[in-house]
């Protein structure tokens, strides 16, 4: 089958940027000889050598801090969180140094870094490996946060993130690495701050990101059958939000559902719904609704795990309820 798997799209992006700019390097656990736990850096160690693709000891806080120091002195490091959850151990470096240092230094230093890796709820990986740290990191000033969702945007966003002079937290999803898609030809990038209008519709706006995009697409197929024309926006940029695209859509549909995989309390949707209320209140015909994960550690049991995160039928039911079409 033709096309490129998502993990290979990321790999191509990193490879192409490393070939073009010798300051770009990768560091993290098993990124080198092993090729990355999800093979995003496969064969790059052989191609670029052990310093440009650096296998680090298991010391997240320290190698993330090392990336900050390397970025301050002229390199453009990409840090892999083998699992994004592990970056809780690097929270201080990401917050105090990646995020705040440019400001506290009065603009002395820039920190061109990308921190990337698999996040989200996988298949029965247990609570610690099923985290949605985009929500935890959301309040940190000075970092951009993006989430890719297709092979095409994965490659274009990764290239943009590497070229950006600011720290970018780049969320991949553990269950999307094998998505297959034909990529655009040639060198292309996707803007880090622009949402993706996935499907145009007039009845209701659905805002989502990462793997939930695909749940929403399933739900929208059903809604279409049921006579509801939903508009789907993939946020892409979780910080800052592309409020222009979002507001434009709400102005048209007057109704909004946020579908997210993070927990409800203090989640991405919590901030988004606040902004929508502040900026789009007069355009709304019904209260905005959040469909979020339960506020619990993700359970191991598969049935309980499915109950923890939002499923497509819940999106369908909610849209119908908002539009009074009966459930």
């Amino acid at each position, binding site marked *: 089958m033709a096309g490129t798997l998502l993990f290979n799209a990321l790999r191509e992006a990193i490879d192409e940027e490393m070939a073009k700019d010798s300051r770009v390097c990768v560091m993290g656990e098993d990124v080198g000889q092993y090729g990355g736990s999800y093979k995003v850096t496969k064969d790059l160690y052989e191609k670029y050598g052990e*310093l440009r693709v650096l296998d680090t000891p298991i010391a997240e806080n320290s190698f993330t801090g090392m990336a900050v120091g390397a970025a301050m002195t002229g390199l453009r490091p990409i840090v892999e969180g083998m699992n994004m959850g592990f970056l809780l151990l690097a929270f201080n470096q990401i917050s105090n140094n990646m995020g705040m240092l*440019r400001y506290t230094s009065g603009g002395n230093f820039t920190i061109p870094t990308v921190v990337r890796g698999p996040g989200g709820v996988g298949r029965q990986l247990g609570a610690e490996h099923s985290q949605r740290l985009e929500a935890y990191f959301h309040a940190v000033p000075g970092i951009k946060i993006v989430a890719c969702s297709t092979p095409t945007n994965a490659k274009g966003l990764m290239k943009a993130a590497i070229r950006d002079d600011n720290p970018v937290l780049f969320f991949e999803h553990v269950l999307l690495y094998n998505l297959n898609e034909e990529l655009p030809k040639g060198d292309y990038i996707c803007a880090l701050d622009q949402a993706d209008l996935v499907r145009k519709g007039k009845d209701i706006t659905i805002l989502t990101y990462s793997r939930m995009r695909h749940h929403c697409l399933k739900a929208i197929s059903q809604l279409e059958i049921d006579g509801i024309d939903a508009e789907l926006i993939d946020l892409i940029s979780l910080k800052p939000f592309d409020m222009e695209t979002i507001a434009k859509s709400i102005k048209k549909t007057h109704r909004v559902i946020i579908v997210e995989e993070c927990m409800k309390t203090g989640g991405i949707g919590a901030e988004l719904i606040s902004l929508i209320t502040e900026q789009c209140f007069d355009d709304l015909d019904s209260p905005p609704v959040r469909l979020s994960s339960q506020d619990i550690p993700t359970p191991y049991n598969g049935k309980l795990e499915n109950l923890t995160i939002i499923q497509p039928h819940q999106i369908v039911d909610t849209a119908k309820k908002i539009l009074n079409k009966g459930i």
Partner: protein
Amino acid sequence: MSQGIAKASNQSTTGALDAGPHAERLSNLLSAKRANCNREIGLDLFRDMTLGRRFEDKCAEMYYRGKMFGFVHLYNGQEAVSTGVIGAMKKKHDWFCSTYRDHVHALSAGVPAREVMSELFGKETGCSKGRGGSMHLFSKEHHLLGGYAFIGEGIPVALGAAFTSRYKKDALNDKSSDSVTAAFFGDGTCNNGQFFECLNMAQLWKLPIIFVVENNKWAIGMAHDRATSDPEIWRKAQAFGMKGEEVDGMDVLAVRGATERALQRARSGEGPTLLECLTYRFRGHSLADPDELREEKEKEFWSKRDPLKKLEKDLIESSLATKEELKAIEKEIDAEVIDSVEFALSAPDPNPEELNKYIWAEKD
């Protein structure tokens, strides 16, 4: 007292017993080779240390007069370390990484006193444009990677600068890349994971870095020997196969000598060194610290070893300078410090319209 265990195991040592185990260590220290000194070097060292001392004294005055706010950690007593290490390195070439006690490291690295004082006053002319404050002094121009306010977080950043140096040399084939990074931190930090993690990585990859421990015995109110299982920090290098050295941190030429040896190793590709400088802060942890725990005898022991007085004595006894010349330098420095205060007082505050500036990198 808290020093009981160390006292008991060291009963044969006399002299420094009453001043505690840290003083005993200094008393028993076998002096390694001190750096060579000539008139020019000697006067430079004296100038830098005097600037450090007088600058900090002025900070205390300004703080108590309500001109300076927040947490202010002064460096008095430890000047031989900043001057001994940074003075042996190449300015604007090598890199320096500090902590919350960073004023004097910044001055030694060459950041003008006006810029440091302005930063402490929160002014736009400060080295961090008034956004950083006492604990966050930065200067890209002077290769100051910054003051880091949390314990240990600067060490990985310093390691990153050392990594860049090696990367340029070995991955980018720039054979002229030989910069070395000095990472300064205290005894309290040596019980923190980042210290051990970075020692491991530095030695593993033979990175050009000097880990400079300024062991002043006290982590705020926690005595070093109450916080760590083996108080001899320099020996922890051995666990990583790294060279470690214990240095009289009250003797600038001893610190300079040890730094020269570490630099030689780093520049020739042999990797890192752990320098433990035995020193003491003459003031409390910060200007907000009532300093109630340290014994008078301990303070007396260390104040008798004032690093500035020691250098002054060395220079005069070896006929490298006269007392009058040193007095003249002190006068010059006092004028420089007063100038920095006047400059800072009359400098503008940051523009309120630029509150959000520096969050994001500017487009080229």
